[in-house]
């Protein structure tokens, strides 16, 4: 709870720093705020779970853990914000503040106990994202991305709201636990179809936010147009918060209706895995590849969801989100540094990077291996735990399918590695990419975290 207040208040304070117009002050200020929020959030870890606003929001270990992921992700990502707008954009403070506000939305999404709070959280997060998607305002692609994201997103929000209304109609409450009670002992059994339609519409709304197929169409285009820095934010924070919210919804509110939603979610899972992985193979731009990769990772996270294994699933989703977020931040950070200076985003722009910038190449390699789920990296154990949860429920065929899909993924995750280490640079005299010392340190930290998660997964594999 303190972290919500802190981020909201300091977000506004940060806005006032805007008159300074200097990234030298704004960036450290934003980082300090985030670090504060991270620390304050962790203080609640051992506290008893506490509810606020007439039980509409609950802070417990679950919310603390996922809040930790989203804040940490932002903290690690923000050093790469510099120069995200090419022509000396002057409204830096607004963008930092928007990120801080959107985090408030994300935290609400992971700690809600009431559908209204879920909706408000999603809206706070989304509206900030609509704005930052268009932050490169003189770039047509960025404008296209913002418009596309906004139109599709508001449509999805509408559907979500409609779903919430129908669920309310069928059960008479917004409160998660009471919804579940209403499913077990319905006041009026003839309203059951209404409940199902409501659930379905809610699933569609949230699937859109986490870019699950078949509601993923916006993802590649929006990522491509959005400045890389914000695209990274979308594919990590938004996704983590979305899945934490989704899991909570399924476990707390719809637990007793598994017979209905497990097949539904399972078909979304299969479709997402297929489209994400096969789509990524065909891409020529690394950014678009990462967009499809983020779709495919939504699929792997869904496997943790359908396992509905309480503690096992929650742990698996937590570990997966963390490993995925760190690796994704690292890959987007490298991509941003390279594409800012070489002005392109295709695979060939990475050619020979190992010669000019060994550190960038190494960090990118660790990130790619982690996303591909190769041992020694956190991504492996993320997949291991989610697949394990699903096998434990007997969904062996689903896991086999997911394993086949991750074989496909090796193809496209290896391509940047091959480009960096095995292809000669296109321009022999290419200048090395300029990376500040601080950014290098953060990159090393990202790689180190990925490897630590891959060697000592026991540290965080059993948090709940």
């Amino acid at each position, binding site marked *: 709870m303190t972290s919500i207040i802190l981020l909201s208040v300091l977000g506004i304070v940060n806005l006032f720093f805007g008159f300074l117009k200097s990234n030298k002050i704004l960036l450290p200020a934003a980082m300090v705020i985030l670090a504060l929020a991270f620390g304050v959030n962790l203080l609640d870890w051992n506290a008893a779970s506490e509810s606020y606003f007439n039980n509409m929001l609950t802070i417990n270990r679950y919310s603390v853990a996922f809040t930790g992921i989203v804040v940490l992700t932002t903290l690690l990502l923000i050093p790469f914000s510099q120069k995200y707008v090419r022509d000396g954009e002057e409204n830096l403070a607004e963008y930092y503040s928007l990120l801080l506000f959107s985090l408030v939305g994300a935290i609400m999404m992971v700690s809600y106990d009431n559908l209204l709070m879920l909706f408000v959280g999603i809206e706070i997060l989304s509206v900030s994202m609509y704005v930052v998607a268009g932050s490169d305002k003189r770039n047509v692609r960025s404008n296209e991305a913002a418009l596309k994201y906004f139109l599709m997103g508001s449509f999805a929000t509408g559907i979500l709201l409609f779903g919430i209304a129908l669920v309310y109609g069928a059960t008479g409450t917004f409160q998660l636990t009471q919804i579940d009670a209403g499913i077990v002992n319905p006041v009026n059994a003839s309203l059951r179809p209404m409940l199902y339609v409501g659930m379905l519409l809610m699933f569609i709304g949230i699937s859109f936010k986490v870019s699950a197929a078949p509601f993923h169409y916006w993802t590649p285009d929006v990522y491509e147009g959005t400045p890389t820095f914000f695209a990274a934010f979308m594919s990590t924070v938004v996704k983590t918060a979305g899945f934490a919210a989704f899991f909570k919804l399924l476990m707390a509110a719809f637990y007793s209706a598994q017979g209905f939603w497990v097949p539904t979610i399972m078909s979304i899972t299969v479709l997402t895995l297929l489209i994400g992985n096969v789509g990524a193979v065909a891409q020529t731009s690394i950014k678009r590849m990462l967009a499809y990769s983020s779709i495919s990772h939504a699929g792997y996270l869904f496997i943790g969801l359908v396992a509905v294994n309480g503690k096992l699933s929650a742990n698996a989703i937590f570990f997966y989100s963390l490993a995925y977020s760190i690796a994704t931040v690292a890959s987007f950070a490298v991509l941003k540094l390279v594409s800012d200076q070489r002005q392109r985003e295709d695979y060939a722009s990475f050619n020979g990077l190992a010669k000019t910038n060994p550190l960038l190449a190494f960090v990118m390699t660790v990130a790619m291996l982690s996303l591909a789920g190769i041992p020694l990296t956190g991504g492996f154990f993320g997949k*291991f735990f989610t697949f*394990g949860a699903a*096998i434990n429920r007997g969904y062996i065929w689903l*896991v086999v399918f997911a394993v086949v899909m991750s*074989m496909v993924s*090796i193809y496209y995750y290896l391509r940047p590695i091959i480009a960096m280490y*095995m292809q000669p640079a296109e321009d022999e005299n290419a200048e090395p990419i300029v990376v500040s010392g601080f950014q290098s340190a953060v990159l090393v930290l990202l790689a180190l975290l990925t490897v630590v998660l891959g060697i*000592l997964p*026991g540290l965080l594999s059993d948090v709940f």
Partner: protein
Amino acid sequence: MLTAFLLFFPVAAALLLHFAKGNAARVLALGAALVEFAVAVFTAVSASMNVAPGNSTAAYSRFSINIPWIESAGINFHIGLDGLSLLMVLLTTFLVPLIILASFRHNYPNASAFYALILFMQTGLIGVFVSLDAFLFYFFWEVALIPIYFIAGVWGSERRIAVTFKFFLYTIIGSLFMLAAFVYLYFQTGVYGGVRSSDIATFYSLTLSASQQAWLFWLIFIAFAVKMPIFPFHTWQPDTYTESPVPATMLLSGIMLKMGIYGCLRWLLPIVPLGVSQWSKLVMILSVIGIIYGAVIAIRQRDMKRLIAYSSLSHVGLMAAGVFSLTFMGLQGAVIQMLAHGVNVVGMFFIGDIIQRRTGTRQIPELGGLTKNTPLLSVCFLVLLLGTVALPLTNGFVGEFLLLAGVYQYNPWLGAVAGVTIILAAVYLLRMFQRVMLGPETSFTATIQDLTGSELAVLVPLIVLVFWIGLFPNTFLRISEPAVLQILTLVSRS
């Protein structure tokens, strides 16, 4: 503690190498590899001194370490040694310094990274041989793959990118099947209300139905079959061996190939014995096909490196056949042949590399008449070659004799067909020797120089081993015997 040292020392040295440049890097790497070898020898000696007659487990139990790794899931960091793994560790630690020394003549760009990767790989290889937990085993299995992919992909020759890509995909897809099998077995351990565990002993004690074992066999076997490789999973092998830089080829053929056979012995036979007995005939036939196939193609090769690659394919088929014969002699033969093949194939690739570096070609028709100027080289080449051909008194003879005896015991017909391998090996290897070393000199070979000191330093230990294993195989067979007997007991328990 010794086991843990053996496991982590190379990777620690690899990290240190980052701070060394150029020549210092390779000297440091060589030093680290030699220290590692010394420790391995010390381990072996101290183990053999403590062997009480009839009780081998006691001697090795103090090498085992078992601490929780992922505590909530019952997955432990469980490593240990027995006779079989000890021999594999000895082979690895013996070959790695030689491989490093063999690469001294090449000036690989970015040397510190190159040697760091070799040492990093050594940790992966040793990890595979000492792991006693299924997931730990899988972990190291993949850890060994990553460095070799980079060594081959970055420092290889022209066609390396496509070739190593194929290699990486093949092996990783194969091992994902194994992982799936392990996860399944892991959940089986908890079926009857027991605590889940991925420890090897728990896996051994699982009671699985014959039909479960039938498909589990394939899931696990494919991973090993790709690594060895067994026909028809071999298509990555000749290209990868040919396109990789020589140290990588040596690592692949000398040590990595043995991961597959070791895996069969430790993880396949005892866990799914019913599956093995159900499919062993098919696997034997595939192996024998591989023997003949590799040999016949080797006869047709003009490229020395490629010829040795196919000869390796042929030899590994025989080892696999010995393993799946499930006889004492077959298994012991496979163990001793793993050592012998490791020594011979590394030596052969090194000789090929020396000739290529001196003359600029490894095409057999362009070579000839080397013996005149290079007596030392010729002798070394001949000894290693005869070891590979399995002449009596050399290391290859012991292994192939035991293997063929084992296969013959299993099925005389298969034994007879597999026996052709010795004749065919003699055909392609002696023919190669004749065309490369004898005959008239060519424009490539007229001014060739004999071996230098560092090259001798690589070849002499190998040649000593050729004769040592050939004359006193009992040194090694004695170490592996209890382990092999234990595996056979586990296999026959069903």
